[in-house]
């Protein structure tokens, strides 16, 4: 197959194999990237990761913050030419929350009135608070104010699927050849473990502005292999490369390099339900022993942003009350002694982490810092899914965890509510934190809401249920012939905003 015969083909190393291209069943970030080019939700990202109107031209919010009314675009079209209607959206939201769809991320839209009941099978689909007063108006009712709805709708869970196709083909609608999308691209081919190929959608509402004809997403699950293929000129974009190469790339090919902090938080979580970490002094001691800057600047060296706050520093409009503090090993030792651990009775802990080269480096450094204050630290690594399965079951003492996502503080702080369920891995429960968080969630005014969140964070982190470490960075290599690429904290780069310069501009590779 002549892979390089496409005149204007953008070849993206997408980091792995998508498990599905059904937007309602999706689960992975790398699927999100493909789906974002194939579909368009009510809201969308622009080239810089800002939230802009998508299939909806505009929207209004009622005074109580509970009713959102979206006006759909008149020129919205599916790839087969059919118009995108409000009825498609009603069908899609119901499909997402229909228990028979078994969408694992259905909870993303639990803010909608009746969503949770419908998803649990406790209420009929019609109970869902999404209605279509006319073909181009969509009304969404929420169960409590949720000012971040526009942001929440950019995930594939909020994407429309073509009612007329899904009703006819059932689950097979998603196969290449069947799938009909409303985004800038349509699915052309999918070779499992090799690539997904998308081509321009001629019916897209802004089709004339789309400049790249073909986008191929390669399933590059080994980042060394992806890097080699990039160096050999077989890929135009890779989202990650070996850390050790960063210095060389900076030196030899700075034009290729795009580094941006990602909206994310890497942290350590203590199992507060069990000894030894039921004791806040022990948690505080281990937190005090850590030197974040040493981890980010000496070990990882990829531009990670050290953070003492549980909310990533780049979240807009949030100024954490938690101060950056320096490591203090003597104080840590003193606390340990107070808690009954000393040379004769040393504290022994197992630190669980996710397999992977960068994770390993950071955890080895953390273990070394703890060993230095007399804590015997064993490491235990597992694949991503197994790791989080263990965490959810409370089968850990202290573990690495991460939370990626949104540009609002609530998204992160929710993890510390006793009602958060199993994503509150450490079973942390503090009535004061819960009360503050719940009050925030009932508040429609954003400034007031954020102030309450800020207080909740300060109260929670005073007892160290988690140790925030850093926000990760995305290190992308983008060939200079690809234009329109803007590094952003969302790490989102819709293909419709990119274009390819002529071959003459081809720069040298690192």
């Amino acid at each position, binding site marked *: 197959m002549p892979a390089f015969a496409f005149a204007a083909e953008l070849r993206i190393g997408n980091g792995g194999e998508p498990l599905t291209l059904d937007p309602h069943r999706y689960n992975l970030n790398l699927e999100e990237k493909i789906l974002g080019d194939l579909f368009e939700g009510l809201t969308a990202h622009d080239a810089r990761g800002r939230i802009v109107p998508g299939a909806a031209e505009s929207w209004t919010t009622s005074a109580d913050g509970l009713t959102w009314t979206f006006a759909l675009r008149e020129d919205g079209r599916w790839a087969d030419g059919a118009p995108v209607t409000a009825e498609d959206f009603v069908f899609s939201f119901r499909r997402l929350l229909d228990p028979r769809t078994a969408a694992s991320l259905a909870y993303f839209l639990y803010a909608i009135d009746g969503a949770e009941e419908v998803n649990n099978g406790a209420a009929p689909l019609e109970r869902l608070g999404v209605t279509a007063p006319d073909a181009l108006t969509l009304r969404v009712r929420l169960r409590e104010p949720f000012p971040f709805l526009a942001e929440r709708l950019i995930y594939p869970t909020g994407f429309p699927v073509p009612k007329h196709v899904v009703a006819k083909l059932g689950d097979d609608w998603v196969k290449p050849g069947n799938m009909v999308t409303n985004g800038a691209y349509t699915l052309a081919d999918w070779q499992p473990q090799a690539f997904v190929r998308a081509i321009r959608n001629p019916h897209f509402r802004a089709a004339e502005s789309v400049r790249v004809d073909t986008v191929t997403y390669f399933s590059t699950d080994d980042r060394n292999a992806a890097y080699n293929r990039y160096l050999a000129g077989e890929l135009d974009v890779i989202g990650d490369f*070996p850390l*050790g*190469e960063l*210095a060389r790339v900076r030196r030899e090919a700075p034009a290729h390099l795009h580094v941006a902090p990602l909206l994310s938080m890497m942290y350590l979580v203590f199992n507060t339900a069990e000894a030894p970490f039921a004791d806040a002094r022990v948690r505080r001691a281990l937190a005090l022993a850590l030197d974040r800057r040493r981890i980010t600047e000496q*070990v990882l060296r990829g531009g990670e942003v050290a953070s003492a706050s549980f909310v990533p520093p780049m979240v807009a409009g949030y100024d954490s009350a938690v101060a950056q503090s320096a490591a203090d090993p003597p104080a840590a030792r003193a606390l340990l002694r107070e808690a009954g651990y000393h040379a004769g009775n040393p504290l022994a802990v197992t630190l669980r982490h996710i*397999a992977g*080269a960068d994770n*390993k480096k950071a955890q080895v450094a953390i273990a070394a810092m703890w060993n230095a204050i007399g804590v015997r630290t064993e490491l235990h690594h597992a694949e991503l899914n197994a790791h989080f399965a263990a965490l959810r079951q409370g089968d850990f003492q202290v573990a690495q965890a991460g939370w990626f996502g949104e540009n609002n503080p609530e998204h992160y702080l929710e993890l510390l509510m006793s009602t958060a369920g199993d994503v509150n891995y450490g079973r942390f429960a503090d009535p004061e934190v819960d009360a503050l968080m719940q009050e925030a969630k009932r508040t429609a005014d954003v400034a007031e809401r954020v102030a309450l969140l800020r207080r909740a964070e300060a109260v929670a982190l005073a007892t160290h249920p988690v140790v925030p470490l850093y926000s990760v960075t995305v290190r992308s290599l983008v060939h200079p012939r690809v234009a329109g690429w803007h590094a952003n904290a969302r790490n989102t780069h819709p293909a419709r905003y990119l274009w390819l310069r002529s071959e003459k501009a081809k720069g040298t590779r690192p």
Partner: protein
Amino acid sequence: MRDALFGTALARLCCGVLLFAGASALLGPLVSPWAFDAVDWDAIDAPPSWTHWFGTDGSGRDLLARTLFGTGVSLFIAFSATAVSCLIGIPFGLVAGYLGGRADLVMMRVVDGLYALPFVLLVILLVALFGRNIHLLFLTLGAVYWLDIARIVRGQTLVVRGEAFVDAARALGATPLRIGLRHIAPNVLGPAAVYITIAVPGVIIAESFISFLGLGVQEPRTSLGMLIADGAREMRSSPWQLAFPACWLAAILCAFTILGDRLRDAVDVVGGRRRSHDERRTAPFNRAPLPLPPVRGAR
């Protein structure tokens, strides 16, 4: 046999390499100024120097100390797995070869059947499913490799069983157990020794393969395979992280292979081989001019 083993400079060199590898793995950690898991904050990703002869890894740990430690782990896994396979395979082969007839046929059919199991996958499956555990690793590898030694021992037993001295012993009223232990087992030791020189490097390579897939031993412990797998990922930016462990591994594997060849020549001379049709079917296993297991093992 002794001459073949130690007669040439090359063979002596190989013995030297293996002895040195074993001794340094045992004694190295005692004399090394760096512990295998100690982090030197001032030398992260550092090339070889006077303080760190082999350089350091991405976490600032001394590579010489880690290479020695990893050699110990790899050799431990390899010898334990080989021991496990001998414990299963030798009695199995002896019994099958000695009994002969239907029993032999059934037992060998079981071996043939097990050969059809995708063992690489089985090991990966077990490690992926039940967690990384060094004991699980060598037990599984041992359980995989016993098939070869069972075939070798059975072939050799078939040959020895027909010898005059066994008939004589039987005529003198010796019990089967006594014949097995006193007359047959000693004659099987030679091929078994050859097998060990084949199996040990095979297991070392299989372990490196498992490490490459990210299923090796737990950090901060390491093995040669894991050092190489990690080093291979950094070979462009930090070549020393691959070069030292890889050379070390290659030297050990070469030494085993060459010694295995010598040993086989020696055993062949002692054995005074006679080949039956049966034996010819399993030819590469009992006359093996090559290490079969490493190849079948894990590529």
